[in-house]
């Protein structure tokens, strides 16, 4: 009899308990937060955001010896910002997404990066408005988003390019066109198994320009020259400079971002005589 009543009360209690879902990242059952898809409050509180970049150049949350080296002076990109520090928990998230292929993480990472992109827009706009123009005219926004490609072999193996998925998600939220400007020309092996020097060297010839993407740049160029809208909003220096936002999952030494930026900058300059300003946004900064 008591067993029966227990079963009954259990059933009633089940009906009455507030609904909970399984948290994507910790697997526990609880109420999920609203602003970050799929995770619980506890996991959301544990995200190591980089709210204010300490190194204005590479977006690191703490002082950055790398950016003091001599060779970084000729970096091809303007700056990098990242959403989070690459802590052990974040490493696990990225591993789940990228290597295990748990693609439900994509939406979460996109939303996190979108949050950082808004911050980035505000920060860069503020920098520009320091020059004296009214802030409303100086609203910084990239003209296009591109992403770091992976090799065909890797793409077939993994089924998706994480940087591309992130870029597409961001483009959709912020209404910015996504243009694939790069092709990975050779299989350089996994970056995560290499030292800093090896990474920089193996990068040299890894990327080439994607001709189809260039056509899109051409169409933007024509668009500008007919409407010359740009001259109304841009400063004299940045007039005609194409703002490209480069997306990747993680910024470690910056060699990937730098090589990609160099290739894009040269190609756009070479084919169309346009100047480019390349900004980089990654999900994590190690």
């Amino acid at each position: 009899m008591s067993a029966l009543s227990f079963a009954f009360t259990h059933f009633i209690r089940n009906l009455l308990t507030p609904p909970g879902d399984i948290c994507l990242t910790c697997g526990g059952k609880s109420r999920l937060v609203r602003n970050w898809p799929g995770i619980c409050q506890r996991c959301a509180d544990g995200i190591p955001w980089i709210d204010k970049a300490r190194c204005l150049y590479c977006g690191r949350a703490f002082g950055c010896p790398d950016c003091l080296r001599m060779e970084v002076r000729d970096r091809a990109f303007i700056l990098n910002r990242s959403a989070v520090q690459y802590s052990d928990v974040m490493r696990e998230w990225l591993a789940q997404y990228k290597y295990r292929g748990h693609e439900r993480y994509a939406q979460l990472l996109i939303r996190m990066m979108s949050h950082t992109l808004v911050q980035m827009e505000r920060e860069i706009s503020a920098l520009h408005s320091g020059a004296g123009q009214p802030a409303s005219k100086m609203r910084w926004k990239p003209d296009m988003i591109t992403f770091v490609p992976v090799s065909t072999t890797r793409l077939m193996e993994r089924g998706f390019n994480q940087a591309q998925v992130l870029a597409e998600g961001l483009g959709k939220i912020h209404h910015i066109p996504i243009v694939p400007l790069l092709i990975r020309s050779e299989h350089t092996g996994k970056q995560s198994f290499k030292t800093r020097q090896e990474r920089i060297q193996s990068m040299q010839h890894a990327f080439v320009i994607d001709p189809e993407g260039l056509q899109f740049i051409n169409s933007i160029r024509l668009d500008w020259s007919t409407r010359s809208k740009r001259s109304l909003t841009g400063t004299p220096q940045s007039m005609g400079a194409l703002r490209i936002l480069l997306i990747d999952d993680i910024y470690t030494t910056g060699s990937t971002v730098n090589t990609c930026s160099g290739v894009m900058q040269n190609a756009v300059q070479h084919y169309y005589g346009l100047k480019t300003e390349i900004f980089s946004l990654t999900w994590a900064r190690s």
Partner: protein
Amino acid sequence: MRIAVYAIWNGEAWTIKRSLDMRVDVLWWTQTADLLGSPGRVVFLAEAMAFSLAVKLEQGFGEQPGMKSWDLGKWNRMICELLGDEGSDNGKRGAAFGGHAGISGRRAGETRSGFTFGCDSSQRQWIWDIHETAPEAVHLLLAEQTGAGRMDAAIHTANTAEELSRQAALLSELLQGRSLLAAEVDALLQESAPMLAGAWYSAAQLASLQGRLALHAGVAADARPRWGRGPLRLGRARHPRCRRCGSESVSRTACAACGRADCAYCEACLALGRSRACSLLLRSAAGGPPAVRGAAGQSTAAVRGRWGLSAAQGDAACAALGFLAEPPRRGSAAKSGRAWWPLMPRRAGRAQPGAAGAPSGQGAPSAVSYAPEETAPTGFLLWAVTGAGKTEMIFPLLSSILEQGGRVLVATPRRDVVLELAPRLAKAFGDTRIVTLYGGSTERWQAGELTLATTHQLMRFYQAFDLVIIDELDAFPYHNDPMLAFAAQNACKPDGKFVYLSATPPRPLQKEAARGTLIHAKVPVRFHGHPLPVPKRITLKSIEQCLRQPLLLKSLTEALRQSLERDAQVFLFVSRIRHIDPLVTVLRRIFSAYCVEGTSSEDPLRAVKVTSFRQREIRLLVTTTILERGVTVPRSDVFIADADSGLFDEASLVQMAGRAGRSSEDPAGRVVFASPQWTISQKRAVKQIMSMNRIARKNGYLKDS
């Protein structure tokens, strides 16, 4: 991945086939041309179709009149109808360059020519009557540049054909009893046949034509016709299922490997590599004659003497041996009203090893077939109390199967048990090859007669074992996890046997055992022959309240002091991790003379603390249910605070109580349940312990103390 698809007239019926290497199929069918009907027709439909679409086509295909005289246009129309939206879906995604999204389609697809199946005939398709000379397209195909996992050489020369059949034989031997994704096959070959690694598609295709290997999709919809679906379930969405772990896969994403925008993947078994709708799952039943069953003749005394078992252990082991000697029963365990465990999976068809080398008109067995009357493994429950010496009891069972050349699997939930058990088994079975599998094991791809694995590793096997022993049936990964039940069921041969070990079987199993519908044997006494300590109850307010008013702890601390003074090691179990630290602080104040520590799953120093608790450096250990199993500390007493908590069910209460009095020097440990109220779980736990003691007394297993 993408795969070639063709239709063939086998003399009686049309079938759709998929191929990893079309050249192998062309050769195969030309060699067996006389078995096909006189106008033997091969219709090459697609060079590279998304694997999931190919599977769908194969499942949905039905013969229509007049197919023999169809031209390609008609075939294409039929495919478009069968695949519906999905077939043409790929075409739509290529557009929209420069839009907000939409580049992905172009990117994903362009890597291989002919990427969509679109309903146009611009692709290379052909119809060929096998008895006539081949059209030029076939010659082109045979001379094609290879790559992408296929064999390099021109395949139709005599030497390579021979080489290929050697490779196919090797491959199917290596994969016997396995259920592996393509990436895992690569890893396996890397280790055991390096020359095949990265180029085994041709060999796999030949083996599948020979019927030695089944090539499934990792995730696929159920092909079983859905009769018997009641009106209430009509509206339920039909999600595809993972063929490896049996879970439903709800997630769909764009996939570059097959070019589909909604390629399903399985989230449940990601840890073993991603299984998805377009990934290849290779399966091969182990085959071989079943281990002869003739071990029943041994007398109890002989078994006891050989393995050094106690009377109770010996009786149970003999009962289990008798069960192993029974012939396999027809009908599944599910039909005995035990549908929940082991969850009977919906079986996909299996490759018939017997069909090898005899290319009948059917060629390979059709991918999915259901035999409603097939034999299924039956189970035996060995219900042995905590500290009864379960491991010793499985030795005679293992040896009875191993001696007859059978293969055995011992699955335990925890990795440390695997590591601890391996040397003991190696000692007992010196001349047997023992493979230990766990996450990160180096023996992952080896084959042996005796396999010792953590439960998740079961998913890599398919009908491989004559005997599967599942340790701690009620423990964490198994309990309520249909995925592991599915995997266990798949790992066992259809005429194989299951033996479940448990000290605290789940309630439904207990009831079945009582009713007599489940074959079981009880070991009601510990190896040292003393009765189990029966829990005593003390009334104590909840720990939450006690922490606010430490005076309330008095009744507990009095009992703890008695135990500490009789020089026992004390376990104090609490229900919540957050109670541990404050409780440790309070207890340290009260028992300043003794070392008090706390540990939980979040404690990085857990292993160290447990060791020093064993060495009697720590005298009182406050902990949660993580230490309820597998920890043996001589001369210990057990206290359970908040024993009425919903987190402590009957099984975990019995397990925790089982930590006390395990050594023969101090068989009468104390067990105390401290709680404000007396719950049904506590009552049942006490009842279970007392009934075990009663049975032991009745059977005369107890030593007179």
